């Protein structure tokens, strides 16, 4: 889960990391406190709270010297959308005098297979360009996960990045605090860009990008962050429905659903299988209406719900229910759920099934019965048909259906 800046900063604050004084406003009626705040702190930065990078360059941050200006900026940014991410509010912060801008990040890396700290004296909006043009300007060091980041190690890293004397000591202290926050909250990415240095040589987190580990949420029952999409656009109605499928039911997974622009409905099983089949469909010229992957031996009712979501999208011309020869997922049970969904929707368009694995023969027989009973145009393949080859069949079926619609003038 990605945190908004104001959420991230309040987490950093708990670890003694300085953040600029600020107020969070999420509705116009809460904007009354701005005047007093601007009077108290002077110049402010008004920052849209979105889950998207490159916010400043997209106009999501305004600097204001007066209360009137700040109020106007709040109004402007309260309901803005930046790179597809809707603002959930604004953060009005004291604008600090800056004598230095640095970059600090903690994340995980496959090269080292460990947490890494990334530190640079050249922080700010151009950090990615700096990393390309002058990679030595960013110090990247792995951290032994069991050992953590002790102060001496943090001092060494700060010194290697070019921090000297008191500055070095303060940067090391900031790193140790940030690492504790990273570790204790199961954070996958903690990025402070920039860390700013004020004339009194105090370091502040001027921004906070934090991604929590969804896999560790159950050991942080105190977290109270409202649900949010991570797609760069709000969730669609069907995506929201799909999300509910797995809520409070840990038997298998059937709630991953992402809506796309195409016309071929995907009912795909298994993570690796699903992306392999998406590739196959697209490479043969098909257009998927959605992405989904169900797996881990889900019960029939979950698959039924997913089927209803997938088949309810308007404008479909075919459905491809496809998966590898399953290892553990009982395909007789998952197909029972699929058939229940078909019974509810009774799709007029063609369906192509390709599956195999535990219970496949029973599943095939049940699909054949359903085809007859519901008068479906359903082609059923078992493992004898190569999985990705069946993409061609569903595309052909979809074309035939489109032609039929055309001749019927609908």
């Amino acid at each position, binding site marked *: 889960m*990605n945190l908004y800046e104001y959420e991230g900063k309040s987490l950093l604050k708990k670890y003694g990391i300085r953040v600029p004084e600020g107020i969070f406003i999420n509705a116009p009626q809460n904007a009354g406190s701005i005047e007093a705040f601007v009077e108290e702190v002077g110049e402010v930065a008004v920052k849209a709270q979105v889950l998207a990078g490159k916010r400043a360059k997209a106009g999501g941050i305004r600097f204001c010297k007066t209360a009137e200006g700040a109020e106007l900026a709040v109004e402007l940014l309260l309901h803005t959308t930046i790179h597809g991410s809707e603002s959930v509010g604004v953060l009005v912060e004291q604008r600090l005098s800056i004598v230095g801008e640095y970059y600090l990040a903690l994340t995980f890396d496959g090269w080292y*297979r460990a947490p890494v700290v990334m530190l640079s004296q050249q922080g700010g909006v151009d950090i990615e360009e700096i990393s390309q043009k002058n990679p030595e300007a960013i110090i990247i060091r792995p951290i032994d996960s069991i050992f953590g980041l002790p102060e001496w190690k943090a001092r060494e890293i700060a010194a290697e990045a070019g921090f000297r004397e008191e500055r070095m000591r303060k940067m090391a202290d900031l790193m140790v605090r940030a690492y504790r926050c990273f570790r204790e909250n*199961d954070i996958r990415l903690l990025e402070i860009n920039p860390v700013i240095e004020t004339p009194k040589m105090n370091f502040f987190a001027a921004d906070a990008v934090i991604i929590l580990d969804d*896999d560790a949420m159950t050991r942080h029952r105190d977290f109270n962050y409202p649900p949010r999409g991570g797609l760069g656009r709000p969730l669609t109605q069907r995506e929201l429905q799909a999300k509910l499928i797995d809520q409070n039911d840990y038997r298998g997974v059937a709630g991953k659903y992402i809506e796309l622009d195409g016309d071929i409905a995907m009912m795909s099983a298994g*993570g*690796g299988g699903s*992306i392999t089949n998406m590739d196959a469909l*697209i490479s043969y010229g098909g257009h998927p209406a959605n992405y989904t992957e169900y797996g881990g031996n889900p019960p029939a009712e979950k698959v039924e719900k997913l089927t209803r979501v997938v088949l309810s999208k308007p404008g479909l011309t075919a459905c491809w229910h496809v998966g590898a020869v399953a*290892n553990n997922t009982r395909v007789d049970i998952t197909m029972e759920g699929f058939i229940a969904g078909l019974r509810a929707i009774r799709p007029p368009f063609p369906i192509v099934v390709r599956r195999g*694995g535990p219970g496949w023969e029973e599943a095939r027989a049940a699909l054949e019965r359903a085809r007859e009973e519901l008068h479906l145009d359903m082609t059923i393949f078992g493992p004898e048909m190569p999985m990705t080859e069946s993409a061609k069949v569903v595309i052909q079926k979809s074309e035939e259906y489109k032609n039929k619609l055309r001749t019927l003038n609908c």
Partner: protein
Amino acid sequence: MGILVDENTHVVVQGITGREGSFVTREMLRYGTQVLAGVTPGKGGEKVHGVPVYDTLKQALTEHPTINTSLVYVPPLSAKDAAIEAISNGIRLVNIITERVPIHDTADLYSYALSKGTRVVGPTSVGILTPGKCKLGPIGGTNPDFQFKPGRVGIVSKSGSMTSETAWVLCQAGFGISTALSVGGDVIACSTFADILPLFEADPETDAVVLFGEPGGVYEEQAAQLVREGGFTKPLIAFIAGKFADMMPSGITFGHAGAIMERGLGSPRQKVEALRAAGVLVADVHHEIATLVAEALGRHAATV
């Protein structure tokens, strides 16, 4: 031969009394895998399909000193503890099937395994199978003989379901398997392609290897580097899934660290380029791997 598991693999299942753990124990026994013991804290003294259950791994080892392999089938938040328990007790191969292990936990257990020289495969592995000798984990489901015939092609895959599907595609083309395994697709995989390929290189019963990759990370690029540097000289055939990912709504990346760390690598297109540049045969569509294996081994599938 094959790699990692064979007829001398003596297994303890950690989390044997769970729904999935007990089911997979039955299937392993049916295959002929020597499952000597199980561990579930608090359930010592029980039996699961005739396999004795102990409270601690140490007790299991005292009673069954030949155990050399652990299958970790515990819930996600217990996986680190179970794996470190196995490593601490001197188990030489630890296979973690558990999915959704928190990444800080994986980093801890990987660091510990590295310091002890223990081979860990996973998390998010579907298991390891050497046909006719040993099935470790759910790999192959209830009927592994269907697609895992004995033979001379190795499979190493990030995806579990595609390990079996890849074996099936090869089987239909007349090829058998030396050993197949999935290493999982997590950011930190305790065994990577580049860790596994040298084992296949050293295995006299493996003639070629099929690699199944997925978007993200640099493990495919590291495999390409290994081949380029001569660390793997047998024919390598690859398929990289996820080329469609470019069309998914992803928004603007959150934070810069990912882009800086990946150094321009990580996308399926870059992985395919890196592998091809190293001389690896890369299939555009999955079922084409069989043709490429046949080509690489210099014979036609139909004549095998």
